């Protein structure tokens, strides 16, 4: 589950949260959401910032009404379904669901 911000005026889902939505509204609801999406881009980072393991897997997940950059728990091909969860400190972690083969 991931805690997201939903704009009361335009329905846009914001993560990270905003003080003022793109539509100008300042009124939001906060909800816990199950987020599952498709991995649309990924990279394996070898030269990582201080304090981070190398290599580090990150990916961009497209969940339709929301896109999120996540740290991937394990390697997965583009096209794979990813479940997004929030780890300690709010860090977004992507768990590859059933592994599909690339391009299938």
């Amino acid at each position, binding site marked *: 589950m991931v805690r997201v911000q939903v704009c009361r005026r335009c329905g846009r889902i914001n993560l*990270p949260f905003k003080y003022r939505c793109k539509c100008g509204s300042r009124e939001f609801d906060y909800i816990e959401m199950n987020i599952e999406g498709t991995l649309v881009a990924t990279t*394996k980072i070898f*030269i990582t910032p*201080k304090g981070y393991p190398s290599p580090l897997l990150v990916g961009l997940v497209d969940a339709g009404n929301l896109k999120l*950059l996540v740290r991937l728990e394990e390697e997965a091909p583009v096209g794979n379904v990813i479940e997004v969860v929030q780890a300690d400190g709010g860090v977004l972690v992507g768990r590859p669901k059933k592994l599909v083969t690339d391009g299938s």
Partner: protein
Amino acid sequence: MVPFLRKVAIVSAGMTKFGKHDGKSLLDLMSEAALEALSVYDSLDIDMLVGATMAPELYENSVGPINKLAGVLGLEGKTVLRVENTSGSGGAGIFVGYLAVASGYADKVLVVGGEKMTSKSTEENAYIISGLLHDCERSLGVTLPSYAALLANWYFRKYNPPKDSLAHVAIKNHYHGSLNPKAHIQKRITLEEYFQSKIVAEPLRVMDYTPISDGAASVLLMALDEAYSYTDKPVVISAVVGKTDSFVVHERDELDRMNGVALSVEKALSQAGLRREDIDLIELHDMATILEIVELENMGFFKRGEGWRGAMEKITWLDGELPVNTSGGLKSKGHPIGATGVAQAYEVFLQMRREAGERQAKKNVSRALSMSMGGFGQNAYTIIYEAGW
């Protein structure tokens, strides 16, 4: 040209060599670039100094860097300020100087950009630069170079360009840089060397990225009427437009959409009353090779998915139809952050006046464009230049 504004021109420009300057501080480097622009005219009295630099607080534990610069340049009783827009600080600095002259507030404005980076290690630099990202991105361990890698991964899947298309951007910019005596890395590279270089973040290699550099650059701006008393070849600034994109990169419609870049170019061209076909030369923000390709597409000079043709088909080489980054770009010239946008204007100034030496574009350059952006296109400034003679 916005009707109520005065015409503004660059009268002179300066630049330190980019590279590793041991023993020189940001203040030394910015002063050197400033004096080069000012030395053309003895005891010139300027009205205003605009300084662009990102993070001397972190690099040198120095605050108020532009007040210090005014001090060592003997500028008292003047208007002095600092402008900051991360890696696009230089473009934003020129915007402020341009408006000051265009509005009539000042007649002569010196814009200086600079950064002193090499006193910190690569690791410390990565840490400092990651500070410009949103905490939600930084906490993942993502840096700007890894965003470029994500974009490259996405671009290759979507458009399937030739495998060596990024290498050709690097080869071109290193070729240009090899002809620029002020470039950080004045060395040509081969396809083999490119593919032998280490992977930083898949699929990008060390050879895809700009080095870490020290350096500074400057331009002296004047109202055009007055500029003719100082040079018979003023370079007119026809428009400067800044536009933002979403700050958090994952909020963008698609990874290769850089709306801030696209909007700033579109509006700058329309203010200048020019079309893309009128532009003879471009300096842009190739922090990584993939960005040169994607920026050219977002600027509308290539269709989406076809920007790679620029370097591969020799269109963007200095003897091509649309030379891009004749200076060597960030890739080969280097990227002392606050200096970069001003150094782009320095390059355009030389190219238009045909003073670029061995790297002089083959074609006549009478109209040019530079684009200086912060971060991953979060805040982009486009400048349009026209020959004033």
